[in-house]
């Protein structure tokens, strides 16, 4: 399956915009990604190993928070997108 890397994180993934991994779950896919590109880990996870709150992970067009989170099953041909949140405001 393919993992899409957003522009700010490509510098930690050999400047790639996508990485192919073999995985059965979202957790395995992300683990495969971070073992190949260890610098990504601190940008995706907190010190206690949880996905940072502002990191959204989509399996194709579904937010994994509304599926089975990191235990969501994946298959060949799926696309996982990592998308940091965009927000702000006055004051």
């Amino acid at each position, binding site marked *: 399956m393919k993992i*899409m890397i*957003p*522009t*700010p994180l490509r*510098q930690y993934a050999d400047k790639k*915009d996508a990485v192919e991994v073999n995985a059965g779950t979202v957790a395995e896919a992300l683990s495969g990604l971070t073992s190949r590109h260890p610098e990504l880990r*601190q*940008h995706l996870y907190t010190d206690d190993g949880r996905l*940072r709150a*502002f990191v*959204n992970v*989509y399996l194709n*067009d579904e*937010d994994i928070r509304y599926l089975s989170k990191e235990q969501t099953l994946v298959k060949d041909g799926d*696309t996982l*997108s990592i*998308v*940091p*949140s*965009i*927000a*702000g*405001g*006055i*004051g």
Partner: protein
Amino acid sequence: MLRIAQPEFNALRAHGEETYPHECCGVLLGRMEDEERQVVETVRCGNTRADRPQDRYNIDPHELVRIQRQGRERGLDIVGFYHSHPDHPARWSQTDLAEAHWIGCSYIITSVEQGRAVTTNSFALLGSGEEDKRFEDEQVEVVSEKVLVREFEEE
């Protein structure tokens, strides 16, 4: 530095006027080369902060996934974002910094006073991570669309 095609620059300012007194928001698609970001297209997004749209904005991540995918199909990357500050200066706020996570990207802010776009500034989000991220003022160069398209096709 940020280089943006004139029609896109006009479009993001017009967006802020249309949504006034609420904040507008959108995505900048283009190319990134070292310290320079080139914007060839802006994509309007909805502001999901229906609870306080006058001073907050949020882009639905699903919309970002779609824009990222459609941009990539055309060789364009997400190089930044824009939003408006209704009746407030075009300067980043502490909220803007706290909620900014796309390091290396540009964040454009337009002040909209009484419904009219006044000042448009851009800030580059720099740093090595959440702990030391910061906004720095960056120069905005508005160029003709033909210049950017020509440069794009040459590479």
